[in-house]
């Protein structure tokens, strides 16, 4: 099933929760959806006979520059039908929040923790949202574009990225 068909189907099903269909500027055609509705959409895509998106290949947080909104990108794949779709949600910089899909795709559990760890995006409904790669008491979210590392971490010097 092509991406356009998926987009058409989703639009008719979810209406205004689906914002736009991006084909320009990306090699993976992307459907931008509302942050709060992502769990419902992913569940629908997983359970529906036509799509069977049972595999979440990747989940990545993204911060374009210091002023833009954060985004979370979901790369879905169907192991049965062998087709792909990319979903994207935007969430505001001041209050980054989106719905968790960790209960739908278990692999999203760690990926969401990683996005939380590095971007500070809150995934609502995540079973155990805590830092995964950085230390538990690390300050700040390192992959944010406006991140300034502290001088010291527990008495150890943090080397500056040149």
């Amino acid at each position: 099933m092509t991406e356009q068909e998926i987009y058409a189907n989703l639009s008719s099903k979810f209406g205004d929760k689906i914002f736009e269909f991006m084909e320009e500027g990306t090699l993976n055609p992307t459907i931008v959806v509302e942050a709060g509705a992502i769990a419902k959409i992913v569940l629908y895509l997983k359970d529906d006979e036509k799509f069977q998106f049972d595999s979440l290949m990747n989940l990545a947080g993204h911060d374009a520059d210091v002023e833009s909104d954060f985004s979370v990108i979901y790369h879905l794949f169907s192991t049965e039908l062998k087709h792909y779709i990319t979903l994207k949600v935007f969430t505001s910089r001041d209050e980054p929040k989106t719905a968790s899909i960790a209960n739908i795709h278990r692999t999203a559990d760690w990926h969401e923790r990683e996005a939380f760890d590095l971007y500070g995006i809150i995934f609502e409904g995540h079973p155990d949202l805590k830092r995964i790669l950085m230390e538990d008491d690390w300050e700040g979210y390192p992959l944010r574009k406006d991140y300034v590392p502290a001088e010291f971490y527990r008495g150890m010097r943090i080397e500056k990225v040149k």
Partner: protein
Amino acid sequence: MARLHAEEMVLNMGPQHPSTHGVLRLKLRTDGEIVSHIEPVIGYLHRSFEKHAENLEYQMVTPFTGRCDYLAAMGSEHGYAMAVEKMMGIELPERVEYLRVIFAELQRIASHLVAVGTFGLDVGAITPFIYCFRERELILDLFEMASGARLLYNYIWIGGLAHDVPPGFVEKTYEFLDAFDERVAEYNQILTGNKIFIERAADIGVMTPEVAINYGVTGPSLRASGVNIDIRRTEPYSIYDRFDFDIPLGQGLQGTVGDSWDRYFVRVLEMGESAKIIRQALDQLPVEGDVKSAIPRRIRPPKGEIYFRSENPRGELGYYIVSNGKNVPVRLKMRSPAFSNLSVINEIGQGWMISDVIAILGSLDIVLGEIDR
């Protein structure tokens, strides 16, 4: 009869432990020898690869990709190079493609040798591990011949290779492949068929296809559960569609489909398939061709984003790259296979004994450098 008061004990396996393959920490809740819950704690080897990548030019990221999965550096470099090339629309010379496939498959054999050997080590067989490393050294010799480095190569560049292979490389590779088949038979004799090994691995940590897909398990571990997904076959990148090879699937020869023994044996079989691919690639390798001709002068992918995945020895290695048209990536996420593969350990390791948890961990073949990045 009054019940004896007993409570579960929390056991910290790692970060310093002989069998956690690096600095992984597993928080085990144990009831005697039985493990009732496993919580992996990762991040001890976090080297901020993604943060580095956002501050480096595209060609400077290549050596860092190799350092993520240090047992399969060629595979990581290959995936990264292909992702950027796809963004820039670079057409590669034939010779480059063939050489890349040869190196990626050699790396797959080398990586699986480590996986097979360390799995043996995890269940207590020390000798097969050393035999496996002996063969791995031969592969590293080939890499050293071509790239000058034995572990971290920086050999596959965006748009080509760092330099051409030396004369005599093809002959030496043939030589290695001829000797290799005999050696695999030896591993099977000493380890694969060994009754104690089968007892330790078969029926242990069974992973059903549903669990595997839901947890994002990829690579040999997924195929051991009987799911026929190999990115080299389902979406052939590079020139994998030109080769004739089988995809070994777990069949439950000694127990259930998807047990630790299947995960081990799929790797043993995959080494043979990789050897087959290398043979074909060597036969078809174009003699002429400049491996550096397609390297762009300025690497500035057009504005846009890509998610590109390739089949690393450990599974699906994906690169999510966002470019804004400058020479430094805005975002580079590595979807590392072992990251997802490890997350399944609680699901399949619950209810087994401590020894089994180690066997299951060994059969998943994790590399902490890649999990923590």
